[in-house]
């Protein structure tokens, strides 16, 4: 007889439960107390997420003139007064912030830069991470766990630290990248002064950082594909390529879609790398949309315009994600 089935232990457990229930039932209950327990979450949610989201939308219809003075409104109840201070000194401008974008060359350029970097970076990363995940999933690979950890490690690198190192690697005169390129007999590449190579450099930097992370997601997906399906396909006469095409890809589709959407969203929000490595140059060719929003908000203090840009970016990212999911066939 196992301990679990032992009658005296059963009795103790039952008695303990009954006693606990009796204590609970005898305590007075206050209505609404449960809500108190979940309140901290809602306070943090409201202050740090809900309020900024709503206030940004509000701000996008105003022009910002500085920190607010005085009160937005005050209610005098005789005994005491409620006074809501003015956060900012703003002036209502309607849709002007949005219409301003149409004629803003730098907005279009930063949008274009972001899209170009995404177009270089995302497919390359998905292909490389899929390839690495497939290789690590192969049965003949030794120390797969250690290799996975090493490959995924860059994701924990500090933004500034790794960006600085890539700045050195891609230094046109003294960098490791050009040294290797010259070693194998090619001309050095103008990573910092050519607008296209600067974008490619950012794409490579991003791929280095995020490839391991995406590889892990795809690897987990691969591990979840039942081996039986490959056996069934083998018996049905499938070659290695056909097994990949008709079993691996469809089975991995949700993970692939996740990686693609997440990478697109991430690339569209690119900021730290161009800020540190290229500082937006050469000639604004690596200014990303988020970089531009940052400049507008915290360099020029055009908070209203920056808010409007932010909402446009949210719209673009949402639209792109929806398109990707529609193409991916995710219901």
């Amino acid at each position: 007889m196992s301990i679990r089935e032992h009658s005296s232990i059963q009795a103790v457990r039952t008695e303990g439960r009954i006693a606990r229930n009796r204590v609970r039932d005898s305590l007075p209950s206050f209505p609404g107390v449960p809500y108190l327990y979940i309140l901290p979450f809602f306070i943090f949610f409201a202050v740090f997420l809900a309020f900024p989201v709503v206030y940004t939308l509000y701000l996008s219809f105003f022009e910002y003139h500085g920190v607010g003075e005085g009160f937005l409104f005050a209610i005098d109840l005789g005994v005491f007064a409620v006074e809501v201070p003015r956060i900012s000194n703003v002036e209502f401008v309607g849709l002007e912030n949005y219409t301003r974008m149409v004629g803003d060359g730098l907005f279009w350029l930063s949008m274009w830069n972001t899209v170009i970097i995404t177009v270089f970076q995302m497919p390359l990363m998905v292909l490389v991470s899929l390839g690495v995940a497939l290789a690590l999933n192969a049965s003949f690979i030794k120390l797969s766990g250690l290799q996975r950890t090493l490959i995924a490690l860059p994701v924990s690198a500090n933004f500034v630290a790794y960006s600085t190192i890539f700045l050195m690697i891609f230094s046109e005169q003294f960098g490791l990248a050009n040294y290797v390129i010259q070693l194998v007999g090619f001309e050095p590449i103008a990573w910092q002064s050519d607008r296209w190579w600067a974008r490619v450099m950012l794409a490579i930097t991003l791929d280095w950082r995020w490839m391991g992370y995406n590889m892990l997601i795809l690897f987990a997906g691969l591990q979840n594909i039942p081996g039986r399906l490959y056996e069934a396909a083998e018996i049905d006469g499938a070659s290695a390529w056909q097994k990949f095409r008709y079993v691996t890809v469809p089975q991995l589709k949700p993970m692939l879609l996740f990686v693609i959407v997440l990478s697109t969203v991430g690339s569209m929000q690119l900021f730290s790398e161009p800020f540190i490595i290229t500082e937006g140059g050469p000639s604004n060719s690596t200014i990303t949309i988020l970089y531009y929003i940052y400049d507008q908000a915290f360099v020029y203090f055009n908070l209203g315009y920056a808010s409007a840009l932010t909402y446009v970016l949210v719209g673009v990212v949402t639209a792109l994600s929806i398109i990707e999911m529609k193409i991916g066939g995710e219901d």
Partner: protein
Amino acid sequence: MTSIELDSVNKIYDSEGGEICAVNDMDLEIQEGEFLVFVGPSGCGKTTTLRMIAGLEDVTTGTIEFGDEDVTDLRARDRDIAMVFQDYALYPHMSVRDNIGFGLRLSTDIPESEIASMVEETAEMLGIEDLLPKKPSDLSGGQQQRVALGRAIIREPSVFLLDEPLSNLDAKLRDSMRKEIMELQQQLGITSVYVTHDQTEAMAMSDRVAVLNDGELQQCGPPEDVYRNPTNQFVAGFLGSPSMNFLEATVSSDGDTVTFNGDADFVYHSEASSIAEALGDRNRCTVGIRPEDLVVGAESGFNVTVTVVEAMGDENVVYAQVGDAEIRARVDSQHRLSAGDDILLGFDDDNVYLFDAETGDSLRTKDLDSAEETEKRITSPER
């Protein structure tokens, strides 16, 4: 349709604790169009053998031939086989229609329109034509198994392999699918190898049954032969439900009478010459009696105390204890027995099986007339 021949097939796995022999020196010939069932307890090597025939598992040593062709080193996709898996292994992202037609699309140049009509035909044969547009996740276990069967038979393979295809189904569905698979196999006449741990399934379905234990083929023959003339104690105990009763006994002989003395009250005197002959000069052996051959209320026999009675309706299965041994008897339900009753169980000389106490080899089986004939069919009688 082809014959299959396994010649000294071994399968050895490397593991941390050394080598594990999953299949040991298996010799077996499966005739064209035959329905052969591998049966045995978990880990006996039956699935491994099937997977080696399929080409999903490498053969360590030995050869496998389909007809005159050596397929030992051929890949599964080049062997012209079809397989039904225990968990069906349908492609979850494809419709039933695509699942069934997938193999044809990959391995033949049959035009799409013809594949479509072949799929319809197969589905109709299996009664799943309504399910064609559905995905496997929308189907019940029985329906999924039908789709898996359809996927296997549409290609008209020369060998049809089934790996415990019914074990995920409930009892009632299992019975009806069992019948359907048998009908299908008879209709198509494809050489079929079926793996199961369920001896009832093995007995009911097979042309020949191959009993495996610890990676070794114990006996192979028509189910009734194997049931009546088991080659050793393992086979005798494995086939039949409830399983055969075994009583260890010392043997003493006094003129024409042989006396068996077992645990507790088990004493058995026999004057049958065949029993004395089978024993030779042994002074110990194991006596085997099938539960259906035990009779309640016989004139002579041995006393037992009933421990449990399972009422089956038409009959009762009575469990009783003799010393350390448990005795199972199938008795007519008119005997109203209950736990604690003392009863006398008797049996006929003709129904006695004898096994060597050390090796477990059969010394005497039930049907003496056919024993010699069966001996010839046994491919690997040695343990």
